[in-house]
């Protein structure tokens, strides 16, 4: 189980930050267990079971 933006979800083996970022069209800030992850690291940054992730998705409304 991992927590993405305060919501619990299933963990899959081989999950990367990139795969979570790709779920929405605009996302640009990622914190993995409170640590800021650079864009260039998304692909190689694996998400482990129990991790807490924050992704800032840009979503319409204002």
């Amino acid at each position, binding site marked *: 189980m991992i927590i993405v*933006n*305060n*919501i619990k979800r299933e963990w899959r083996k081989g999950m990367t930050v990139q795969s979570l970022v790709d779920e929405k*069209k*605009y996302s*640009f*800030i990622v*914190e993995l267990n409170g640590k*800021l992850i650079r864009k260039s690291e998304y692909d190689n940054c694996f998400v482990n079971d129990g991790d807490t992730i*924050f992704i*800032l*998705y*840009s*979503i*319409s*409304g*204002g």
Partner: protein
Amino acid sequence: MGKFTLNGQEILISPGKTLFQTVLQNKPHADIILLNGFHVEQDCYIEEHDTVVAIKSGEVPPKEVFESLLIARHTPDIHRKLKKAIVGIAGLGGLGSTVAVALARAGIGKLILVDYDIVEPTNLNRQQYFIEHTGKYKTDAVSEIIGKVNPYTKIISHKEKINEDNISEFFEQGHVIVEALDKAATKAMFIENILDQLPEKPIVCGMGMAGYGRNTIISMRQVGNLYICGDGVSEVGLGQGLMAPRVGIVANMQANQVIELLVEG
């Protein structure tokens, strides 16, 4: 002999005279008296550096008294910090129009307003505008509203679309920047460019506010200089429109964050 301030003007303290006697002498019709920001019901003596505001109930006080009312309400130290502050606001929709009016009421010195659009009838369900503003530029309409609320807030307007080439020109003067745009792509472009071009500026953005209810999931999160207000998930879509209360909560949360940044630095 010590001085105190009455309605923004420095006056010598008359020895032996009480607060009520002094007010009666200077503002004979005043029936609302604030001493250092608080309503006074019991007479007392004035001390050096006290701030007194005396107005007549129901009467519009002259311009100079407005500012002393703000000082009385917010305390001189907070008022001074807000008065010298410059805040840039990108977008004047449900978020931006509400942030601008809230900050003007709080006594911010200068606002930079950037929006290319005009007021449409469809805006009235959540934005600060009135029917008579329909067809006016939003920058002009917000300026007009602020002029009626706090004429001391200076306004610089840009009626232009924001792009990566004009961002730093419009916003580099601001001490704090507010992202109040509507489309996901524009919001992302703006935030990324502020973080890149003006990395030392705090930016307060609004993300996720569509629909109604769900009060408990609206929050604020800080990542470096980026402050994110909203629920982070509620996107505008079919069956989930933007409504005044939830957009207003996020907008006021943004304005609240701006004030904290300005006062506490």
